[in-house]
């Protein structure tokens, strides 16, 4: 039997998923400026997965995709950590800060609204951590749903 909620729930959740994902991505990208960051934003995006699973039930077998995304996120994280050594500093050194490239802007002093193109490797690490958390939490939710018989997996 397929798990499916009423059409009202499904429609509302389909609509709500968009702002939830946008807000999660906002949290991830502004991690170095405002409260939040990779983990929190990732958890918010994963809650969209939860919403979809609960309302719509049967999804395709995403296990492999999620687990690849998770591993890729963590691999990028440690590659970013090694970037410090490649640039001639210690591991995890923020070698991109203030260099003028991507996220390499100079931090303004004084009271200001925050400038997103700053932070060096910190926002990049937020993005890969966000990627990892989205994948890992979604994978956990997917497995829980599958094993509790909430949905049938269509191969």
């Amino acid at each position, binding site marked *: 039997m397929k798990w499916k909620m009423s059409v009202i729930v499904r429609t509302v959740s389909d609509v709500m998923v968009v702002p939830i994902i946008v807000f999660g991505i906002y949290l991830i990208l502004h991690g170095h400026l405002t409260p939040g960051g990779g983990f929190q934003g990732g958890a918010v995006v994963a809650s969209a997965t939860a919403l979809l699973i609960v309302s719509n039930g049967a999804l395709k077998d995403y296990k*492999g995709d999620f687990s690849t995304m998770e*591993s890729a996120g*963590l*691999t990028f994280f*440690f590659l970013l950590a*090694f970037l410090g050594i490649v640039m001639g500093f*210690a*591991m*995890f*050194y923020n070698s991109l800060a203030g260099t003028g490239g991507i996220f390499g802007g100079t931090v303004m002093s004084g009271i200001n609204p925050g400038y997103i193109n700053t932070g060096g490797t910190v926002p990049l690490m937020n993005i890969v951590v966000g990627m990892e958390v989205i994948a890992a939490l979604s994978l956990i939710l997917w497995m829980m749903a599958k094993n509790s018989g909430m949905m049938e997996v269509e191969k």
Partner: protein
Amino acid sequence: MNIATHLPSFILGIPLLFAFLTPIANKFSKEIRNAVFLTGLLLTGLFVGLMAYEVYTTGGWVYIFGAQDPVGELTTESLFRITFVADGFSTLATLTIIITAIGAAFYSLGYMKESPGMGKYYTLFLLTLAGVNGMVLTSDLFNLFVWFEVTSIASCALVAYHNERGKSVEAALKYMIISVVGGLLLLVSIGLFYGEYGVLNYALIGDSVHGSFIDLLAIGIIMVILAMKASSVPMHMWAPDAYAEAPEPITPFIAITSLGALFVLFRLIFFVFRGAVEPPALGTILIFLGVLSMFVGVSMALKQSDIKRLIAYLSVSQIGYMMMAVGVGFATLDTADYGSFGAMAIEGGFFHMINDGVYKALLFLSAAAVIYATKIRDLNKLGGLAHNMPYTTFFFIIGALSIAGIPPLSGFSSKLLIYESVYLYHPILAIIALVVSIITLALVAKVFFNAFLGPDQKMSKGEVPSSMLIAMGILTAVVILFSLFPHYVVSEIVVPAMESLGVGA
């Protein structure tokens, strides 16, 4: 700047990087996954070797993560950075860990060939390796907590690998609950230190500790937690279950996480706690824990008939030797006795740690070979394996004689140092150590007699696959090497480790 200064970060970072490359490689094929895993492990081994070379030729250094200059001075700005120490003690610890890890890894390739979920198995293997390496290398209390948790969670998942067996899940759950509660208590005591001194670095705390009530409370909690993780009696109840129920090839590596915790405990005692406690008092506690572990471990082993459980209890009792020896050394610190026998006790204790890591791995792996060939773990049902499995029999003999401390094997050299020195502290300690050693010999003789001797009962179809023989061969070679040149090991590996803790002879 010299690239060699980055070696501590490689020893940590390479296993972590390859841990997460392994599941990606698993998408392509088994062979690529195994190649990626082995590359990560052997690279780590290479970097451990290079760090040992650097430490022995140029002396140690402190590596500061995230700093512009990784070997610069700790300034007020970089006070809260994570620091790793590369010194003689780190080298002793990482060498012990990597030798066992390489043995367990090659063994896994043969043993777990047909098992499902191996992508995750190898990931967890490398994560545990990174966790233990981080634990022994770090010199920052909060970072210690992080690696403690990484090690606990990864090794716990490995214990639960056979999740179709109820007992494995039970052992893993027990291990996890104890580790997590222990980890949180560790965090509490780190908080106590931080609240009192506002720093987390070992050296900085070591400079300021003075034995206030808060200090002693934190030291007590940390010692209990690390002794628990080191599977010392009376906090040993998780260890035999976890060792017996973990997948056979990984068991020595789960045991090495215990040894890693013991390394951390010794580093903390000499580095941080020394200024806060009376050496005889803390030394006596260590001696007490050690004697208890030795005796209870070996007497619990007497009644076991499961081959892996028996070796697990023997491993608990071996932990006792190290704690007792280092306890004697610590109790005599700053007295005239230290020069006459205290230093020798610590020498014996540290030498026993590296010996123990290797021969215990050999014993666990040869027991695993028995289980692989016969699918039987009960000693009363085994018999006559020497007819079909000559190599495994030989490897088991080497490991067994070494753990029993029979000359000329490596276990004898370190145990002799321990007997001679603790006898001068108190004769009863040496007598207990000798008695425990004799019971250990009787136990391994029982295992040998039950499993390998007797008429051929056609239990095994022949010798185990070659990758498993290679793994046991590597470990046997190391044991024999240590047996032939014990003085060299002591002067080149153990003495620098003691000097780096400030307790040179």
